[in-house]
């Protein structure tokens, strides 16, 4: 399911991205679709609270005494007529100090609670019948939400380098200089998004791993990728003749793209490291677990929207960049 939703959002954005053409003005509905999708993704990422279950709270209390987290629980009466709270995993307990909250049986609540002396104690009533929540991941907590912004940036850089490679092949096949413009526009946008993925990842790493740069396989591989594409622009700027520039950068763009799947998808998953999804990763639970292939269903909705929306936004940027470069060239 996770793969299907992501593949669908990516394929749809790829098809729509080339509509009506990569270098022609996009229709209004296309732009509105992009704007609405990203706006919805932002709202659905920021607004829903993170809420865990009783096992999460017990685990967290074992690591840090007195820590309180949000619990998503249903308030009901058990077979003995006692008031209990049941989480999504069917685990039932009584949460103390909930008397003053004015709760109604049968409703779901988010109750900020702590676990002390084998008892669950309420700290604050956060909300009633929440329309959407995200799972609590002990090692990530609120930082879970970066997934919806950071991962699309990294994905778009791969998409941009792929498009750059496609136009490089087209140039070498036809020797038509019109393919050189999208080639370089796509590679430069890919580098911009790779830098954004690195910077957002660094900021997250500071608060998750303790420092901005850790030489984690994921960080090292994206740095190598940036250096490879940095050399691409150095190569381009060192050649004056348009034909030689286009021919050499086409060959380089094809060779550079061969490294992309290894540096982005294979190497960081084979090596052991700190980044979620690395070979020895066991802490990300149901959110991005590579072992089970699962992604929380609520997270899947907002993540799918973010992947689609940001990919469309990239195509809009690429379209503008190509049209501006074409205009300059025509002059």
């Amino acid at each position, binding site marked *: 399911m996770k793969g299907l939703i992501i593949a669908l959002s990516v394929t749809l954005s790829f098809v729509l991205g080339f509509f009506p053409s990569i270098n022609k*003005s996009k229709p209004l509905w296309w732009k509105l679709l992009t704007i609405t999708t990203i706006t919805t993704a*932002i709202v659905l990422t*920021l*607004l829903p609270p993170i809420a865990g279950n009783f096992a999460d709270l017990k685990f967290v209390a074992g690591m840090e005494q007195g820590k309180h987290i949000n619990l998503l629980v249903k308030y009901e009466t058990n077979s003995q007529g006692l008031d209990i709270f049941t989480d999504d995993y069917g685990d039932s307990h009584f949460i103390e100090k909930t008397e003053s909250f004015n709760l109604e049986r049968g409703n779901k609540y988010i109750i900020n609670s702590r676990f002390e002396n084998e008892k669950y104690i309420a700290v604050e009533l956060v909300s009633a019948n929440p329309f959407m929540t995200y799972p609590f991941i002990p090692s990530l907590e609120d930082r879970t939400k970066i997934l919806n912004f950071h991962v699309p940036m990294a994905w778009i850089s791969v998409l941009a380098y792929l498009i750059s490679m496609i136009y490089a092949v087209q140039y070498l096949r036809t020797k038509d200089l019109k393919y050189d413009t999208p080639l370089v526009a796509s590679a430069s946008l890919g580098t911009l998004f790779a830098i954004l993925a690195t910077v957002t990842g660094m900021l997250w790493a500071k608060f998750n791993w303790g420092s901005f740069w850790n030489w984690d396989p994921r960080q090292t591989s994206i740095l190598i990728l940036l250096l490879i594409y940095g050399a691409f622009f150095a190569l381009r700027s060192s050649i004056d003749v348009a034909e030689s520039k286009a021919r050499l950068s086409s060959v380089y763009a094809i060779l550079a793209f061969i490294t992309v799947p290894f540096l982005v998808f294979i190497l960081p998953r084979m090596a052991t490291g700190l980044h979620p999804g690395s070979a020895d990763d066991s802490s990300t639970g149901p959110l991005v677990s590579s072992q089970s292939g699962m992604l929380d269903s609520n997270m899947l909705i907002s993540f799918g929207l973010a992947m689609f929306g940001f990919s469309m936004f990239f195509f*809009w*940027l690429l379209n503008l960049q190509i*049209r*501006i470069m074409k205009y300059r060239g025509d002059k």
Partner: protein
Amino acid sequence: MLDFLHDNSIFVVLGITLIIWGGIVSYMLSLDKKVKKLEELTEE
């Protein structure tokens, strides 16, 4: 309203993010419009 925002500060974060996103969108739309005008001028 102010009390609500004070108690639910995530709405303040959402507001700021949407204002920035709105700014980027308006810049993109105006750039798109300008490029279109330039393209029409060159076609003529």
